[in-house]
């Protein structure tokens, strides 16, 4: 069994290799993806294997190379653009929001942008305020984009292919704190549905909606809660835009209780949207109000104890859910 163990990093790398092998139009570009081997060693040796035309080191020019990725996609290529981390993504947000997200609609359907942007995100490596953002909510607000979050090894391994097959711009968030984590990959799995959320654990007492690093944290919490006889359903939202409302509604309809877990800071976040949708669609199904456990509303500080205090921890999920269930 241990033979099947694979790191999250290796999952991403295999997905990229596979994509490069499958389609000549695919190339990857970004800062330090080549000679350095990727800031997180995700693309180590790919330059050697595929050459500098397919693995392109870019200068520090996030707006420039994301814009160039959009142009290359318009020109018939299938670029995978890596933004080293989400922390630098705002520099390219104009390109993403005003060009990638609008071109198809604004041109009356003439010009589509088959671009994939990958970026690592998240909190947890003591990188302090400017390097600890979880900005998925900003991207999830923008029409015209498909926003994916790879909260599991499975998705890290299998989201890229459908993202590249999508004729529209897709952004994949990857989680730095998971890179070294090893898991087993189901062998028969060959693709994932990038339109659908995924129930990662079935349960009947309460639904946790989450994504990103929240997935494994929630599964850990669910294990512990199971010992206390509480059967938690864990739903990995996975597609942050357009949100898969039906899966949310189905789960709440079953469990009648919902809890949302997210690393991003609370206000105007994905969790707000999930709560609002449950309000709209499942109000009369609810046995208790939906509660959220989110990141603190603060620039994330460097010291470990403060960083830990800034994001949801499994123990907090456990105790919050216990409290919530006492409501009933």
């Amino acid at each position, binding site marked *: 069994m241990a033979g099947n163990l694979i790191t999250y990093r290796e999952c991403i790398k295999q997905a990229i290799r596979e994509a490069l092998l499958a389609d000549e139009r695919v190339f990857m570009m970004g800062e330090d993806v080549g000679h350095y081997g990727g800031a997180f060693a995700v693309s180590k040796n790919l330059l050697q294997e595929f050459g500098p035309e397919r693995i392109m080191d*870019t200068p520090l020019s996030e707006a420039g190379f994301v814009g160039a990725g959009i*142009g290359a996609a318009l020109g018939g290529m299938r670029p995978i653009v890596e933004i080293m981390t989400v922390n630098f993504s705002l520099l390219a947000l104009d390109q993403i929001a005003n060009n990638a997200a609008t071109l198809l609609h604004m041109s009356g359907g003439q010009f589509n942008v088959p671009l994939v942007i990958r970026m690592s995100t998240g909190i947890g490596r003591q990188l302090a305020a400017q390097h600890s953002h979880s900005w998925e909510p900003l991207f999830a607000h923008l029409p015209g984009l498909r926003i994916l979050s790879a909260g599991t090894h499975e998705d890290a391994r299998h989201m890229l292919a459908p993202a590249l097959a999508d004729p529209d711009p897709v952004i994949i968030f990857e989680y730095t704190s998971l890179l070294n984590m090893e898991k087993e990959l189901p062998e028969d799995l060959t693709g994932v549905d990038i339109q659908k959320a995924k129930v990662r654990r079935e349960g009947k007492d309460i639904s946790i909606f989450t994504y990103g690093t929240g997935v494994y944290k929630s599964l850990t919490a669910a294990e512990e809660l199971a010992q206390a006889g509480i059967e938690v359903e864990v739903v990995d939202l996975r597609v942050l835009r357009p949100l898969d409302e039906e899966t949310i509604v189905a789960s709440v309809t079953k469990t009648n209780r919902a809890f949302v877990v997210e690393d991003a800071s609370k206000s105007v976040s994905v969790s707000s949207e999930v709560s609002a949708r449950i309000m709209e669609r499942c109000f009369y199904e609810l046995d208790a109000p939906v509660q959220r456990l989110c990141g603190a509303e603060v620039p994330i500080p460097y010291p470990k104890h403060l960083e830990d205090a800034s994001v949801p921890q499994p123990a907090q999920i456990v105790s919050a859910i216990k409290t919530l269930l006492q409501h009933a």
Partner: protein
Amino acid sequence: MNLNPDQVKKLLSQMLLIRRFEEKAAEMYTKEKIRGFLHLYIGEEAVAVGVLQALQPDDNVMCTYREHGHALVRGMEPGVIMAEMYGKLEGCSRGRGGSMHLFDAKTKFYGGNAIVAGHLAMAVGLGLADKKLQRNQITCCFFGEGAMAEGAFHEAMNLAALWQVPVLFVCENNLYAMGTALRYTHAQQDLEKKGAAYGIASSSVDGMDLMAVMQAANEAVDSIRQTGQPHFLVCNTYRFRAHSMFDAELYREKKEVEEWKQRDPITSFKELLLQQKMLNDEDYQAIEKQVQQEVEQAVAFAESCSFEPVEELLKYTYSEKAN
């Protein structure tokens, strides 16, 4: 350059078509047939005509929001452009873009881009795709001198030079970015010199002189096709009209505008042709008439078109074949 009478007439009529088409657009704006922003190119016609004649049909073109002229020269139907400005379904962008967002896959016209300098990096990407796919095409990207202050300009120029992509960057230096004069926009006002910071071959030309623009553009395009390297061409020109229909023009003297009008690119070219006996008054009248007719037909077409049904609002937010 040796041009035959047919060629020069075509060039003259292209410039004149831009002029008359835009005069009509302004009129239709006051009649509230056209709304939103409307940026006129009047005075700058020699740039679009002079540069675009150097291209092949396969080449890519990207423009700013001041792009009616380029669209016309590129061969898009005047009626379809006018319909777009009317917001009609038969417009080149289904009416969804309006004046600032003309798109046309057939002529490889990639907008109509309304974020200043936002399209420059996309032009680099188009060039990169052409290079990777070994297509013998170039990408021609127009922008104003104001755009050159944006970081986007800097990044795009550097990437173009590093990656050696076949892109012609054309700065339409009309001396103003809205109401901000060149001297408030750039400390280094000799814009051509900025090319050196990127190791990009650069040239500049009198943008009011069609023949000069043509020559500069031909040279630039030749060199791009031969070397595969980008080129930066500055065309010094002037807009005779306000920045957009909302502009009270408080920032420049009437006199300055009048002086530049003495150098009207259409009048100059016409005079040159008359002088060189490549054209006579009758020819000119015929061209005027022909252009007027095209413009009238464009309006008639736009009037006859329909609006997109409101049920289709969301259509193409994502591709229909999206998985």
